[in-house]
């Protein structure tokens, strides 16, 4: 069997917030984590456990941390802000709890948003493919404010898939959805993962995390226990 390549390698990651000269808060304490190509990982934890800090680091949004982070084998700790932007565009698809869609803008335009910064010849074709993949082909020209919560999250997923990233990073993607819709979205994630896309899911809900193949529990900035 072919050995799967590591996509994310975190070694001894520490993150400290300094609220004043005297007060320091450690959000992450020596995190070690390797996520391989095709993995579907859930990172769980209560509020304040360090989930969001870890998500920001993995998503290349925060580079003020200690430790070593390799993304697809590339050490990102010394990269410039511009290079990190390029890597985000190429390798990471973000999905947020609040969907973060542009209002009064069509589904297609929202999905095409990442191409504003990195355009390819077949942008529109790929956007249509992504929209089809999330099952919204009937709503292509609808404005996002005409859609339900579940549909809006599907638009966000299509937008994340648009640049064909190696990782989908989903931060509480079902936090604003009802139980039924949440499970429909998780089914969609499962199907996307089955097509080979690595997914890192951050959630505090057990039943949502159960959909993932691996689960990690963050407690006070450390992994308490992991199970496959």
């Amino acid at each position, binding site marked *: 069997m072919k050995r799967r390549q590591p996509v994310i390698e975190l070694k001894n990651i520490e993150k400290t917030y300094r609220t004043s000269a005297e007060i320091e808060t450690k959000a992450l304490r020596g995190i070690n984590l390797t996520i391989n190509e095709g993995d579907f990982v859930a990172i769980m934890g209560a509020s304040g456990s360090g989930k*969001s800090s870890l998500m*920001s680091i993995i*998503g290349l*949004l*925060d580079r003020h941390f200690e430790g070593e982070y390799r993304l697809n084998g590339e050490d990102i700790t010394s990269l410039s*802000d*511009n290079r990190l*932007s*390029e890597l*985000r*565009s*190429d390798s*990471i698809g*973000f999905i*947020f709890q*609040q969907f*973060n869609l*542009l*209002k*009064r*803008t069509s589904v297609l335009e929202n999905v*095409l*948003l*990442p*191409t*504003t*910064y*990195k*355009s390819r010849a077949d942008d529109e074709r790929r956007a249509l493919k992504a929209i089809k993949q999330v099952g919204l082909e009937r709503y292509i020209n609808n404005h996002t404010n005409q859609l339900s919560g579940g549909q809006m999250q599907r638009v966000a997923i299509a*937008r994340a898939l648009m*640049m064909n990233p190696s990782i989908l990073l989903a931060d509480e993607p079902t936090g604003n959805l009802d139980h039924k819709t949440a499970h429909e979205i998780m089914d969609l994630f499962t199907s996307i993962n089955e097509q080979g896309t690595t997914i890192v899911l951050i959630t505090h809900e057990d039943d949502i995390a159960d959909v993932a193949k691996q689960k990690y529990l963050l407690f006070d900035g450390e992994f308490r226990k992991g199970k496959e």
Partner: protein
Amino acid sequence: MKSTALLKQSFKSIASNKVRSSLTILGVVIGIAAVISLVGLGKGLQNNVTNNISNLGTTDITISSQDPERQTADRESGTPGGRPGGGGRPGGFSFGGGDTSTITTAEYEYVKEYDGIASASPNESTQIAVTKSSTSDTASQYQVYGVDTSYIELEDLKITSGENLSESQVADAKKVVMIGSEAADELFGDESPVGKVIYLDDTKYTIVGVFESDDSQAEPGPGGGFPGGINRVTSSFVTGYNAWLNLADKEKLSSITAKADSEDVVEEVATAIEAKLYVNHDVTEDDADVAVSTSQDLLSTVSDVASGFTTTLAGIAAISLVVGGIGIMNIMLVTVTERTREIGLRRALGAKRRHVVYQFLLESVILTLIGGLIGVALGILFGSNATSFINIGFGGGGFGGSSDTRVVIDVSTILIAVGVSSIIGVIFGLFPALKASRLDPVEALRYE
């Protein structure tokens, strides 16, 4: 980066806040419209004044007495005016008729006979009490001019009854006067004043003729002063300069108006006469008590003043443009704050800092450009309306001319206005745009 996509997104963002965007644009519209219309107006007035001065005659030479101390003070304070090398005050707006009288009648004769001078006349005036009889208790004050026979022709006046002063009447200081048509109406009504007697400061004078201004031309005021206002020449008296000197109890003249044979010799003649007068008076340019100026001198001085006036108007209008720019900055700062999460999202989707700067700059430039274009249109509209206002205000012959003031808005003004509005967009949009680009993506995404 896909510029068309960004442009579309910018327009969409501006359109999503219609009222706010319109008010912001209005600030720029007012600024640009003010610049366009006021600069156009200034240029129009400049053209009007210079054209009218050119119409007054390019062969005119004015010789005026002046106070040497004041002349030096003017020079030190940098007051514009005077012919290069001449150092004189422009005769057209001469104040030389005041207490300073330094030109002798012999010098006037010299000027009159000078080769290259077509005609000349002293141009003296003073207020004199005029009565119709020696016993009258009530006297009216009239302006009385002391001139030579050529004055009527020099000032484009025409004699309607009686006749002009004769050479001998002027030379011998005969007590004869001509009366302006308005003064004749006031004093004699329907009666013909010719041959009648009038008392100037209780001295008996005989009226020999009636004159009025030639309506086909604007009425140039005595001494080249502002016509159409006070001291209209038609409500005054004109006598020979020798008689006038007796009447005013003076020995010397303060001002001479002359015309050169042709435009080609004006400067040469003026320079030669000035040199001669300097020698006579034993003065130099620095302490000159007499100045010789031509209408060219006046033209360049007035042109300088008008151009300064235009610049001042532009400066005032520019203040409103700056206020409009501050409005842009204010609204862009609000936009950046409101769209913090969107900025975070765009950064997460791969936008570099410069992409964010570019996007917000683009929005502010679009706002100012729209404002600039509407402002140009309104500026032209205001400018043309201001034209009718000004023509009513100053009257057709306001500055001695018969032509209307036309607001001058040329392509360069429009291009500058559009360029300036774009630059304002960049300048006032830069700070908010930089602020947006410096947002921490993590913080921006969490912003509520």
